[in-house]
């Protein structure tokens, strides 16, 4: 009797140890964020100032928007490489419409800024719909399909201006196209509009994933596509949705950047897709699908953003920054694998105990 009491005690204590470790692992992105922020607070002067926090938030926001869209694509078991090009193409569409309007035959139509924003957002939705069509109807692997649209979208962006920049997007009052730069400069209650947008977008996306059937279906498709199909999930619709959502997020970023710069350049957004993937992975999204949270992704985006801005403030060279960013991503995935294995082991333990 006493031996059994001892053994049960021991197993209880090891499980609490395991549980504590698992909790630490689950919160690792958060812990990493605090470590990185704490490190730079000590090492870099001015790091903790409000002005710096705002600047950094603006930097992070761009990547965070893309990463939110990317998270659901990856959770559904896919990948979207086309977002960087979509950023560039959206900017060119918006810039072109402001400067030159839309020429149909002999007429030139100028839209107001709200209409331009709407049309520009359609660009992302269309690219996403094309990705969805290629993947669901023509059975192209997501990596290849979005690699293709990456090139096509970038090419069209370059063609639209022959490779040159659309400058001075202030618009003209005679065409009624003024107001575009406001997107990037407007502030509400001292906080930039961009940050407000990110907050709304982040909360909305998190709500979608946690508490709507659509969100749950995205996780199911990524976890086991066939089981999801047999449970009545319309798999193709879900895939269309995630790619169109990702394209939509990319278009928002395209608008913000061209508005902030008051110009649009066709090469804008190059390699943005890689930063978005990095943020999602850093935040605990599993590349095999089925796992990942918006909260984690946003923290991941902040870790990456703070890391690069902090290193700049410390005067570390850009080359070293790249190396460090890579190492952090690899470390994140290694820890993620460790956590997966540990969770699995604990699940089996529980199963064995239930059968006793």
């Amino acid at each position, binding site marked *: 009797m006493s031996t059994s009491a001892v053994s049960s005690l021991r197993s209880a204590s090891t499980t609490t140890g395991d549980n504590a470790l698992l909790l630490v692992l689950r919160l690792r992105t958060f812990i990493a964020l605090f470590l990185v922020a704490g490190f730079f607070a000590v090492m870099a002067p001015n790091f903790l100032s409000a002005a710096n926090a705002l600047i950094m938030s603006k930097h992070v926001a761009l990547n965070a928007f893309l990463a939110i869209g990317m998270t659901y694509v990856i959770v559904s078991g896919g990948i979207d490489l086309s977002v960087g090009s979509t950023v560039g193409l959206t900017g060119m569409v918006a810039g072109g419409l402001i400067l030159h309007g839309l020429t149909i035959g002999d007429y030139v139509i100028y839209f107001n800024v709200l209409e331009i924003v709407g049309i520009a957002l359609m660009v992302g939705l269309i690219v996403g719909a094309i990705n969805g069509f290629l993947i669901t109807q023509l059975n192209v692997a997501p990596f290849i399909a979005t690699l293709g649209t990456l090139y096509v979208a970038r090419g069209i962006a370059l063609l639209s201006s022959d490779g040159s920049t659309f400058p001075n997007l202030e618009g003209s009052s005679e065409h009624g196209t003024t107001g575009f730069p406001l997107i990037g400069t407007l502030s509400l209650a001292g906080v930039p509009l961009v940050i407000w947008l990110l907050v709304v977008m982040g909360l909305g996306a998190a709500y979608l994933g946690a*508490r*709507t*059937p659509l969100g*749950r*279906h995205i*996780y*199911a498709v*990524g*976890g*086991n596509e*066939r*089981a*999801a*199909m*047999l*449970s*009545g*999930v*319309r798999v193709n619709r879900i895939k269309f949705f995630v790619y169109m959502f990702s394209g939509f997020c990319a278009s928002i970023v395209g608008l913000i950047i061209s508005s902030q710069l008051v110009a649009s350049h066709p090469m804008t957004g190059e390699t943005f897709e890689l930063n978005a993937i990095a943020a999602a992975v850093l935040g605990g999204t*599993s590349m095999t*699908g*089925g*796992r990942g949270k918006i909260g984690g992704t946003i923290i991941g985006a902040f870790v990456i953003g703070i890391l690069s801005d902090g290193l700049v403030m410390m005067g570390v060279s850009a080359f070293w920054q790249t190396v460090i960013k890579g190492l952090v991503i690899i470390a994140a995935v290694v820890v993620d694998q460790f956590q997966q294995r540990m*969770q*699995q082991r*604990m*699940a*089996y333990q*529980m*199963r064995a105990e*239930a*059968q006793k």
Partner: protein
Amino acid sequence: MIPLTSPQSHPVVLKLEGVSKVYPGTMALKAVDFELYAGAVNVLVGENGAGKSTMMKVIAGVESPSEGQIWLDGKAVQLGSTEVARQHGIGIVFQELNLFPNLTIAENMFIGREISSRMYAIDSEAQAKKAEQLLGELEHHLDPNLLVGELRIGEQQIIEIAKAIGQNARILILDEPTSALSAPEVEILFRVINDLKSRGVAIVYISHRLEELIRIGDYITVLRDGCVTGSAKMKDVDLTWIVRQMVGSNTKNFARAGDNRLGETVLEVNHVCLPRLGAPGYLVDDMSLSLRAGEIVGIYGLMGAGRTELFECIYGCHPDRATGSVKLLGKELIGSNVTSCIDAGLALIPEDRKTDGLVHSMSILENLTLASLWRLVTLGYLSPEVESSAAGKFVKSLSIKTNNPSLEIGSLSGGNQQKVVIGRALMTDPKVLLMDEPSRGIDIGAKAEVFKVMRDLAKTGLGILFVTSDLEEVMALSDRIVVMSHGQLAAQFGPNEATQDAVVLASNSQVLLAA
């Protein structure tokens, strides 16, 4: 099919003496004696779980016997691994082929023992030549540089056999080789077998299809519950003898007592056909059946009889290929997809829980509610309280053993995982439940629970259609038994009509039944 040589000329090449195999909890083989004759087809037959596969695994070196002795050419041997068995000339072709579809025929045949020239480069030409020669011996003149993935299943099987022959197999074990083959492919396989026989190869042929066994076999051994219940020369026995040895002398009539209060017809399946992909013929060939509320109908049949495919047709998995008519409460379902079938009141418990049933990255709760989320939301919002109370009801009524439904699905045992899949189906409030092998991969205790759940559900007025290859299961559970064979309806047995012998006979072919 009279053997050309007299039976006396078949020497015993391998002998099992008192071989037992104990797994934790079960004894798969109980002191089995078995003799294997060279230059003959040694047929092995028995119900699922009778111990055929275990015996073959012992011979092929996959498993070591717990007790007993194996004699090869009169010498005692230890077949510790497949490698050792292969060196002794024992080859096995598993039911699920172990080929690489992305490699060529020659590459597949020499995988792991590549012919290499100097500098360790693979000598592709020599391999292709040897492969061509081996295939030629089997009268198959296939280009050895073709990709295996482009071949038909029957041809792939020939590749496996040629691979075994290429390793100088004197004993060739074929585990259910015809389950995926079309009729002409079976003929080709039989020609190959006869050819091998004449070259003195000892062939072990495992199959559920009795008509095949009688045609091709020289010796027959029947297994039941891990014991050899009969072995004889094939020409000395007939079909009734085989079936009696398989199911035992105490053939019971399991049909359920008349507690069936059946309602009106809920599901009508009429002339449903599903053509084969990329080959002539039908997987489901003009199937018709009906199901009433509160009724449990068991579909019995061998592997490849088209049972799972029939379910897929009913459940809308092939909306563009299936023809015929499926009516649920008068509503036509052929041509609609899975989602509309679920909405109409169908639910499916898939055969393979791992690949088709569960989403392993989700919790027990999320797996339960997956199919019924839209029923639980208000204004697009899925309230955690509503979700967990709805799921909790089914955790309770199905007695799923967990103290926290938000744990990962992997924390449950196989039987409880199966109950989660059943619970998910029930949460869509179905009128008809389709269950494909509901007891696959769960232990005996859990089986009994799943069966009790099925009976209870039928009592509440649900129509249940289930597929099984387990004879006792179909006898014990069904109000009515439908037997399928080669995609067709082979026989139907009403309450108290079915006997085990009749069901087994019917599952083998209509030709036999007519004879």
